[in-house]
């Protein structure tokens, strides 16, 4: 059952995208790992979109929705 609002999906997707994208810089600067920008970028977008779809369809849940309030 879907228990995430559209606002939550939008916000969560944005934050998830930023975190994964920033990890690329951390890998590059701190570990010297040069990931391919196009592949990494595309993979990031696909992952974020899949998570968003999963949340929208209720395939991904975060515990008991009764914890939520208005």
């Amino acid at each position, binding site marked *: 059952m879907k228990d995430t*609002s559209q*606002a*939550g999906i*939008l*916000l969560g997707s*944005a*934050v998830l*995208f*930023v975190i994964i*994208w*920033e990890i690329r*810089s951390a*890998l*590059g*600067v701190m570990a*010297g*790992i*040069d*990931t391919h*920008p196009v592949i990494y970028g595309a993979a990031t977008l696909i992952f974020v979109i899949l998570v968003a779809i999963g949340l929208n369809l209720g395939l991904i849940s*975060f*515990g008991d929705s009764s*914890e*939520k*309030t*208005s």
Partner: protein
Amino acid sequence: MSEQLESGAPTFLDRFPQEAKVVRAALGSSFVALFLGALFGIVQTLHRTDVFRFMDAEYYYTVLTAHGVLMVVSFTIFFLVGIYTWGVVRSLDRPLENIRFTWAWYGMMVAGTLLAVVPILGGFVDTSELSADVLFTFYAPKQAHPLFYGGLSVFLIGTWMAGADWFRSYFAWKQENPDERIPLQTFMALITMLMWYIASIGITIAVVGFLLPWSLGLFNDINALLTRTLFWFWGHPVVYFWLMPAYMLWYTVLPTISGGRLFSDPLGRVVFILFLMLSTPVGIHHQYLDPGISEGFKAIAMTNTMFLLLPSLLTAFTVVASMEHGARQRGGTGLFGWLRALPWRDPAFTGMTLAGLMFAAGGFSGMVNAGLNINYLVHNTLWVPGHFHLTVGTAVALTFMAGTYWLWPQLTNRELYSRPIALAQVILWFVGMALMSNAMHVAGLFGMPRRTAEPQYEGFDFTATFGSIAEFDLQLAIGGTLLTISTLLFVVNIALTSAGPKVSGLGKPLSEPLSGPEDSPEILDNLKLWIVIALVLVVLAYTLPLASIIERGGVFGPGVDPVPMVVEPLVAYAEAAAGESAVGRLATAIGGVLP
């Protein structure tokens, strides 16, 4: 007064219609500056990254100056005077003493902005003598038309008058309420202005004493290091001048829209007092690479700067604690489960929270800037704009926009035109800024310079640690474009809100703190004590460096050969020994490389 007030709380407009008009005017002026500043920002971004160039590189500094001045002088400070007028009037619960005086300082600020912007725009007209391509950091040796300095002076006087206006209201309130503690919002506004008055000493001396007469041709020589130091005397505390209204929104509005109450009023007072004391005696940390200031003075500035982390960390704790309280009031449970109970659909809440999140990242990069030795790695690189686009460009700007979504309906008695657009706007800003500032930070670590029209990185070998310069340019351009779209969404949403039908009952009272002013020592409200301590710290931090600069270079000019002294003996030796020996050839080579 609206007819249906029974259906909801009266708004600020209902209660103080004259003051609401001033607040609307100030906020409206700040949004015009934001819109124009954003247009110059995207032109600059696309030009620099070579995505789209339609102007000659010689105009880059004109665009950069317009972007900087409109964003960090006009947008931020017009918003500050608007939000503080609202905060003072609301928290004292009384109108301003003389609304004509209020309009006078607003008029001064508008006139000052126009006077300063005209010579900036004159930079686009080749036949015009008007020019002010001096960037926001307008110290010597860059010289602007006198109108620019005159405009900034008029603007500055307007801000001083605004502070005086709030102090008059406070003194009048104090006469009627001698035993009351200063309401928190008024306390924050007054402390901010005390900090501003101290900080203004530096820029006033720099502009009135040196830059303006120099640009008028009254004297030809100027001590560039002295004007730089006086500029940064003001130039760092101005960062907190932008930030403190955002803090006021985080402390007094964010807990309410989270559904709870401010965790601690006394902590809020302590934080603002720390800003008053510590904001000014730190400016030299912007001058770590200036050769005319001793390393010892720089180390002192670094130490003072690191102390500034304390109020920010206190704020992070207090604001998050207040949000958690709000979430639990809304039914949130668990160690982290309460996060889900926060009102993420509300653009005001989400915008301010994302702004706070980005501010944490900006704080970390700020620590790198403040470190005396590690600063050498990033000084004058694109890292620095990456840093301040997280602080003033997001922590401040995004909080102001989010706060507007909450406040504007109460100033106009009109409902926000579109909450979904507002929510998308703040999220778009977050993503756009993450991309842009990430690219700036990384490119800065690679050594890419700031304030440069066309850093091509072509025609020579350059291997990035990872990725490529072209990739970071593209990321920067995409981020800048998203930010421009976000700005347009904000401005259009507010404009459509202002054109909407009037309704009543939109007032949103603020909640009382969990720990109120009665829990804090009365000494926190002793403004005289804190300003004396702040002045003493400024004297301690600046007297010796300024005396040293003047002793070495004079008041109006350094009077020394600008070529580093170490080179001259080498060049002389090279000339004598050239062609005679290996040492001579080596000296010639060194002399040829060094300036």
